[in-house]
């Protein structure tokens, strides 16, 4: 892949990841949120693929395919089933309303650029310049876990955090060693499965998937 094409596709795909994160804050329909997450998973795989082709790194290309399969297909399908079973699958009353959330996302993106100065300074490449986008995605994930009250929204927030970290790892270090990458992906997949099982139990016990129902344990 030649220089300009490489740089622009990498920028585009990293940008898509951040935009998808913002979309999860903007859309209140949970099925739309899960779709955004699937697109984000594919974009993340694409980033790894571009880097793998550029650096002639076969391992990274394999990892890219795995990322697309797990984050683009498997996890969104798992979440999609829960959303489909819940007829009122809208984020009804977020603690922070949508316009304020979007302003928050913008502020977090600025913060990400500030916090990653030392990282960007260390890697003077196209990939290095894009690292703040990963941090911004991660911070938006945190934000959405704090302000959203639906069980599914919290899982989505966790996945945003994870995708943000994966983006940083791909851009900054061309992926962590394979053994660690595989272990980490498996752990995330299992965590989502566990959360989904818990959500299903909550559904059968409480009849809603609202975390405001969880208020039994207090000091």
């Amino acid at each position, binding site marked *: 892949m030649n220089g300009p094409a490489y740089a622009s596709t990498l920028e585009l795909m990293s940008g898509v990841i951040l935009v998808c994160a913002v979309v999860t804050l903007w859309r209140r329909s949970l099925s739309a949120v899960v779709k955004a997450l699937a697109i984000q998973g594919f974009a993340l795989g694409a980033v790894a693929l571009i880097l793998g082709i550029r650096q002639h790194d076969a391992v990274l290309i394999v990892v890219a395919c795995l990322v697309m399969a797990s984050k683009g297909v498997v996890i969104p399908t798992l979440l999609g089933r829960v959303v489909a079973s819940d007829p009122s699958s809208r984020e009804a009353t977020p603690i922070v309303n949508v316009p304020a959330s979007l302003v928050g996302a913008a502020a977090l993106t600025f913060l990400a650029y500030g916090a990653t100065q030392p990282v960007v300074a260390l890697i003077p490449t196209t990939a290095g310049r894009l690292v703040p986008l990963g941090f911004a995605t991660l911070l938006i994930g945190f934000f959405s876990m704090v302000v959203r009250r639906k069980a599914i929204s919290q899982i989505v927030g966790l996945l945003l955090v994870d995708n943000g970290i994966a983006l940083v790892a791909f851009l900054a270090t061309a992926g962590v060693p394979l053994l660690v990458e595989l*272990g980490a992906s498996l*752990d995330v997949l299992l965590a989502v499965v566990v959360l989904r099982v818990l959500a299903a139990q909550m559904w059968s016990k409480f009849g809603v998937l609202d975390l405001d129902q969880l208020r039994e344990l207090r000091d």
Partner: protein
Amino acid sequence: MLALVVLAVPFGAGVASAVAPWRRWVGWLCTASIGAVLVCGVGLAVRVVHGPPVTAFGGVLRVDALSAFMVIVIGAIGVLATWQSVRYLDAELAAGRCSQRHASLYSMLVQGFVTAMLLAVVAGNVGVMWVAVEATTIITTFLVGHRRTRGSLEASWKYIAICSVGIAMAFLGTVLVYLAALHVGHHEHANLDWTSLMAVSHHLDPGVMRLAIALLVLGYGTKVGLAPMHSWLPDAHSQAPAPISALMSGVLLTVAFYALLRFKAIADGALGVALPRALLVAVGLLSLVVAASLLLSQRDYKRMLAYHSVEHMGLIALGAAAGTRLAIAAVLLHILGHGLAKGVLFLTSGEILLAEGTTEIAQVKALLARRPALGGVFAFGLVALLGLPPFSLFVSELNMVRAETQVGLGWAAAISLVCMAVIFGAVMSHGRHMLFGAGPDGEQVHKTPAIVTAPLIGALIGCAILGVLAWPLAGLLRAAAQVVAT
């Protein structure tokens, strides 16, 4: 070879308990497998105390004195917890609260949980260590929710949501450490092995390492239960079955702390001691203050024990902040002492819950008169946990304070002593309420079977021997402290 056996034996027992239908002998097989881990841990310790570290799979597994010590800690408390698990499952089955299948699932998960903790401490690669710590979160979530009540469901959700986020931060920190290692110069040798990171630690980029160590302290700190990320801990530890609480509180927290100790050694090399120390002092003191204020008004004895863990994690964070050999040796002794005492107390509290049917402090009265054996173990456990002699926590707390004063952290040690005094008063008053007084007239004295109390008494005696003689661990503690001390 021995490093591999440590992982294979409990894993094998886990597989056996998954395929065989639940019987008591399966439970005892699991206990025996953890006992074998303890023996292997001692064997490893003997080998590495004076010799080079034991490695396997080209450095993926690596056991030095620090790892061997942690294997012993996991083995010791693991034996207590799996021993008591047999009784817990018997009682649950008898009461019809769980099925045969659930009992099998429970033993399998416990074995998986212990194996994951062992992998975390024998991994030579900090990435593999991370994977293992995250695996403990996933496995224990099901164990926390084993009783399937509304409360335990809530606790499981909070536990996995908060800990997953925390551990994700730790992963980002690990990635940044890797990034710094990649840019040291000779690229091709960079990997996530702890030894190679330590070898280049003085050349790691300080800007990136500052960000990394902050993320690692916050991230692994979540799993350690350090404030301000402790909010999952009292819920999870109070809702989990007693043997699981004992394992989570007694060992899992300190396994996460072990990860922090490893990274602190790398960060000390890259940044000097100031920043890692400041971060650990901040979270340590905050944990102590939070624990002290919440223990005062505690009404539930399992939550009381859980907050007590927050306090002890704060203490070891302060000790690690001092970072000298004396401090680290004291921290490690405290890890073992706290594990034993907290394990005993959680297991006893499980028995109390079984007998009294409540976890409210106000509902439990005159234990010493009504259930002398159980009450006695609980009383001595509290005495050990509060850091009174002859138990080892007294010695380790004393030495941590000494070490902190030596490096100019006397003010922090003073604050920690004030918090400890407050906690001492609070726990004593709760304990007095539960233990003393006369039982209702005509109620006969309840006996507790010796098979329940024997291992608990054994653990307390062990804790006291360590406190008086420091034998047989003195050499191992010195060697282990040398691995990560500044």
